[in-house]
């Protein structure tokens, strides 16, 4: 049974964590695509930026969370979300809107967003340095060990992981209610369907664009901060997330928020399963194996260093099976 707990800790928990992060990133990418029709490559660095803002606030007020019994970074999260949203709207007004008014081709927007990503990376490194920093300033990460009766190995969950699961569920439910129930959410779906008609129906498309950046910026901050809280803040942390997030968005069907969530979890679990050491699960039957079959110490599908290959393998496999993604994408 210890082996099953090991499997739970290293696959179910780790896969869910990766899945949540990818899902929140991919939802942002997919919303921006469905409203503005371009692949926003600067998205991962908006995640880093959000986490960095939260880190700064946490360093300034390290004990702000004590009264509430939460990590200070969580208390600072709303401020970080507001700030990052404002920056996202500002970037849109400064860089993307002038291009939009000249009706440039989507590829120009994509390259512009690559420029923004390099700019953000440079700026963050300028202020944050290149090293890793913990978001637990003057505090300790809480680790929950859940004892399962009759088994020596406990289920291990960290505090940031629990918060991540709760926040992701809340964000997904909130987004669903917003898109299907509220007028503004419906107006957003309408604009992704037909922007000309949306304008001719009196929908304020500028407001919708602003709102898209606010949602994407907030989700990016959530994902970036919660990941940094669980691991550590690194200026290049989310840059390594960019490609899996795009894979998740495409696998799910670009422009489809719930597809992006499904894609995020698919890619997250596939990555974790691919690097999982299966030989641990086989150890109990080691004695009954024939002599000529020795159990290797490490029996993973790919080494950890090749993890990045997995999302793309899935991407290609899914696209051959369903060229439009798991959910048929394009409009929200």
């Amino acid at each position, binding site marked *: 049974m210890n082996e099953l707990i090991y499997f739970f800790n290293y696959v179910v928990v780790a896969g869910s964590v990766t899945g949540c992060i990818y899902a929140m990133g991919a939802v942002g990418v997919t919303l921006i695509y469905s409203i503005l029709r371009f692949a926003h490559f600067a998205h991962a660095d908006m995640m880093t930026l959000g986490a960095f803002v939260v880190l700064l606030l946490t360093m300034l007020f390290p004990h702000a969370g004590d009264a509430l019994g939460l990590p200070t970074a969580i208390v600072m999260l709303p401020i970080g979300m507001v700030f990052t949203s404002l920056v996202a709207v500002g970037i849109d007004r400064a860089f993307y809107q002038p291009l939009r008014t000249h009706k440039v081709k989507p590829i120009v927007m994509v390259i512009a967003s690559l420029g923004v990503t390099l700019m953000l990376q440079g700026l963050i490194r300028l202020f944050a340095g290149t090293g890793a920093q913990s978001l637990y300033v003057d505090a300790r990460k809480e680790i929950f060990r859940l004892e399962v009766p009759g088994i020596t190995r406990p289920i291990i969950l960290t505090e940031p992981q629990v918060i991540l699961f709760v926040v992701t569920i809340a964000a997904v439910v909130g987004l669903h209610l917003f898109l299907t129930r*509220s*007028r*503004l959410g*419906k*107006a957003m*779906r*309408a604009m992704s*369907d*037909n922007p*000309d*008609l*949306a*304008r*001719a*129906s*009196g*929908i*304020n*498309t*500028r*407001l919708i664009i602003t*709102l898209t950046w606010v949602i994407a910026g907030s989700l990016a901050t959530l994902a970036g901060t919660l990941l940094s809280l669980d691991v550590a803040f690194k200026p290049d942390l989310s840059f390594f997330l960019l490609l899996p997030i795009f894979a998740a968005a495409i696998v799910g069907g670009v422009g489809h928020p719930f597809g992006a969530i499904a894609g995020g979890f698919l890619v997250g679990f596939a990555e974790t399963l691919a690097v999982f050491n299966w030989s641990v699960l086989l150890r109990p039957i080691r004695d009954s194996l024939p002599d000529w079959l020795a159990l290797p110490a490490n029996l993973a599908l790919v080494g950890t260093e090749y993890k990045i290959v997995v999302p793309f393998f899935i991407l290609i496999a899914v696209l051959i099976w369903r060229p439009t993604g798991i959910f048929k994408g394009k*409009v929200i």
Partner: protein
Amino acid sequence: MSPIIDVRHIRKSFGGLTVIDDCSLQVAQGSITGMIGPNGAGKSTLFNIIAGSLMPDSGEVLLDGKPITDLPANRRFHQGLLRTFQIAHEFSHLTALENLMMVPPAQEGENLFSTWFKPGEVRRQEAETRRRALEVLDFIGLAHVRNELAGNLSGGQKKLLELGRTMMTDARVVLLDEIAAGVNRTLLGDLIGNIERLNRELDYTFLVIEHDMDMIARLCDPVIVLAQGQVMMQGSIEEIQNTPAVIEAYFGAETA
């Protein structure tokens, strides 16, 4: 009758091609004004400029005496200037009912503040919009397909839906861009009937681009003839049909 739409000295070129060349025209309040002209005369361009989908290079557009040249399409919408599209546009992933409900009178719910702080008001308005949308669907004869995705409607039904959209709000001027194209005769009768009813009962002013001369003859007075980006003449359909220059411009020189 005072003009509700006043177009003054509009110019628009695309690259080196001047499509609208110092064009001025007026649409009288309460009229159903037709606009005809050969292909490439600039009808659709002028339409897009009046609706706010295109910005003119120079010149002015006035709605009821107030300049609206710089307003985007959605702001013109809220001032009562609406349009339909030559190729029917619809939110294909929303139902016919939802398509109409996208067009509320005051758009209370589209204000970020009220979504969060006045849910009761928003809900009341939503119910009101829904009631109105159902009435409109009844009026245009689409009640039986109200829960069908708009993308699955026939071409003619989509055109009716376009007209229905203009009835969701208190429109003053409606620009109809080839509403008859691709619509069968029976449905066309319904369309014309609905347009006349809206004009008579709700005092809608219509500006109609049309290639179907029957429809122009049945519906429009006066008719404006556009050729090479300028107004060639304006008058009743009889006057237009009896003017050799129009026939020449429209049908080519050999019929003149």
